[in-house]
């Protein structure tokens, strides 16, 4: 026995490790090229808006409007980002928003007032998320197919509930949240909800075991499984979360529009996926950024706003959106290859 070759213990000196920088340096070090470039794009857009329509664009009311409009899709995008980070996809978000918004605004539900509407929207969202999660995690279905089926069914159910009619909300407590009187320090409550969801989503992804497991499952499911992670349960939770976000978004949409319609949330899935992807979340999973997604949402809503102010039609907007998605992904590929 005696002289076995022991690995040297303790390692070398105490060189300042890159992962323990002071907060501000950590932020700048981590605010990678991608985030900075997204901020740059946003700044350019604001500049364009300011130049083309100086009075209207920079008006407080307009900025409040932009943020409010971004809030609904923003909340959906936070949930979507988590799902995509885990290597999944949720195509049913728009349909879930529609179903939750009409279920929460039926005459019967409205009788229970504010609480009834909120609770119904959230529960419908969670219920749909549960079905998605069970199908994907335990039914072994491909996320694309499972959530596509949910998309179709939830839309159908929403149409069945409303029979195509717009359900007007008569509960004052809900409607008043959309009015200027309820703004907090000039910030609409919807935007506050979006901010809270964003912060929670960021913390969840970056500071909790849940977030780590999400990234691990997305990056390498087999390795995650062999590392002792319950991959299926993790996936179930993620679709539940996405459903929850849709429920919240539906409630925000009810406040915003004062009604529930089966056409609500149309193509939200595409907007949410697009925002997440240009934000820097990998569609193949394993890397996700809530910050990027939120910036992606803000970029899209700002474009929509500027185009509307300049009387450009939605067709032009959509062409521009498509171009931005392509440009963003190409730039990301370039930076990913060089680093």
């Amino acid at each position, binding site marked *: 026995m005696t002289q076995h070759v022991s690995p040297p213990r303790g390692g070398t000196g105490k*060189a300042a490790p890159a992962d323990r920088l002071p907060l501000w340096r950590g932020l700048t070090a981590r605010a990678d090229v991608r985030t900075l470039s997204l901020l740059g794009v946003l700044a350019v857009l604001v500049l364009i808006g300011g130049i083309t329509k100086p009075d209207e664009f920079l008006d407080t009311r307009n900025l409040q409007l932009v943020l409010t409009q971004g809030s609904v899709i923003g909340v959906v995008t936070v949930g979507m980002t988590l799902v995509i980070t885990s290597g999944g996809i949720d195509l049913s978000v728009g349909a879930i928003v529609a179903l939750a918004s009409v279920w929460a605004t039926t005459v019967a539900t409205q009788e229970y007032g504010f609480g009834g509407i909120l609770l119904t929207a959230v529960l419908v969202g969670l219920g749909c998320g549960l079905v998605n999660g069970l199908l994907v995690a335990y039914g072994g279905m491909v996320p694309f197919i499972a959530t596509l089926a949910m998309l179709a069914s939830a839309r159908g159910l929403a149409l069945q509930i409303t029979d195509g009619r717009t359900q007007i909300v008569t509960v004052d407590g809900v409607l008043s949240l959309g009015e200027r009187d309820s703004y907090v320090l000039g910030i609409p409550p919807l935007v506050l909800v979006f901010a809270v969801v964003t912060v929670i989503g960021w913390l969840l992804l970056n500071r909790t075991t849940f977030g780590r497991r999400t*990234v691990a499952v997305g*990056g390498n499911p087999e390795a995650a499984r062999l590392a002792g*992670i319950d991959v299926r349960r993790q996936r179930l939770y993620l679709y539940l979360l996405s459903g929850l976000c849709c429920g919240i978004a539906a409630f925000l949409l009810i406040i915003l529009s004062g009604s529930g319609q089966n056409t609500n949330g149309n193509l939200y899935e595409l907007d949410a996926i697009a925002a997440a992807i240009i934000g820097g979340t990998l569609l193949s999973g394993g890397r996700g950024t809530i910050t990027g997604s939120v910036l992606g949402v803000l970029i899209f809503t700002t474009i929509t706003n500027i185009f509307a102010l300049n009387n450009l039609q939605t067709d032009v907007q959509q062409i521009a959106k498509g171009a931005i998605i392509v440009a963003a992904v190409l730039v990301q590929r370039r930076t990913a290859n060089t680093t």
Partner: protein
Amino acid sequence: MAPEPPLLSMSGITKSFPGVRALDGVDLEVQAGEVHCLLGQNGAGKSTLIKVLAGAHQPDTGRLHWRGEPVTLRSPIAAMRLGIATIYQELDLVEHLSVAENVHLGHEPTAAGFFVRRRAARSSTAQLLSRLGHPEIDPARPVGELPAAQQQIVSMARALSHDVRLIVMDEPSAALDPEEVDNLFRIVAGLTDDGVAVVYISHRLEEIRRIGDRVTVLKDGRAVAGGLPARSTPTREMVALMTGRNVEYVFPDRPGPAAAREGDPVLQVRGLVREGEFAPLDLQVRAGEIVGLAGLVGSGRSEILETIYGARKPMAGQVLVDGRPVRTGSVRAAVSAGLGLAPEERKAQALLMLESVTRNVSVSSLSRFARAGWIDRGAERGAARAATRELSLRPDNPAVPVRTLSGGNQQKAVLARWLLRGCRVLLLDEPTRGVDVGARAELYAVVRGLADEGIAVLLVSSEVPEVLGLADRVLVLREGRVVHTAPARDLDEHRVLDLVMDAHPVASEGSPAS
């Protein structure tokens, strides 16, 4: 035979991938009309070499001559134009297309340069299939409906549909039963009679003896022997060339025999069995002991480890850690009982390649740094740092992405994961696969160091010297059965090779790697 110049000559071919040098100056010379066999273990560089030959990989350095002319193969198409066809082990057929469509994929007979002449494609396919001794395969059938053996024939027909001078066959017999192998050999003989050269990769020595003319042996990215006569070179010499050490590895000293015997049995396996993979198995590993499983591919080595680890469900049997039974068939139960696995395919099965070393190390112990799901990242970093330092992982900065590490250090990151988790039993599947030769000694020291801390280590390796040098006790496996158990010091390489090969003079290893 042997007209000069040779049909193909490769010299000084090197090819590196991040973290590992897959080819380190390989020479290969193939004559027209010969069957040239490539022999080597997983990770020896066979797959990389044939990909270079197929134009799928570009070598970093080295020269290629084709019929005496220097050439570069920029793409698979360039190789095909010269007349080099490759039949990969993972057949590259399109399942939903018909046999004829697969055979002519990319060079369909056309009318007006656009419309596929389906009848012409079918009749020429039928001709090729009869030439290959399988006229019964219907050219119109989707390839996905054919059995594996016939798919292979289709793959070969595709190779022959080009004007081919050299065919590379990567373990063509792996999926075939004996009669089909006979047919394969008839085909190979027919090809060589026509002056076509065949580069034949197999780990079955008896096949190489039957059809091979010359053998080149690869090990650790080098050709350790080139152009050996296939029929007259002794089996033992070939196997020794494949598995033998060509570098003096430094193995850590073992603790005295008493120390190992006194340790408590940490891992006990009783009657564990998976039919078709391995026979009922009993083994135990004591605290501080390293037990090695020696055996060839197909001997059930990896399957045993994965079953103990819960990644496969046994048909019967028990796994106990510290005397307590572990629920079988559940990785999570195994991990919480104190088992850890360093799997054979590190990148595919263990590592999160996009993540830092820290996160790769902490992933199995997250709840230790978390309160109500909230991670104390300072504690996480500290623990990961301590674990990676203990294993002298380089660079000494766990914040770097794990993909930037060398193979050996990536393996240390996997080991650090289990060290941090405080595992009781470490299962190592080919721990030095993809690890540069020079870095192996250090890894051996790390493993021994972990054992000295009281961890029970179960080691699987196809490198006999590695098992003999590192393990205290060795179980020799043949066809899923333990045929011999002995202290490592009572065995030598030749004895183990004899035991391992007894029934079939099979050499080592299959499946592509590197």
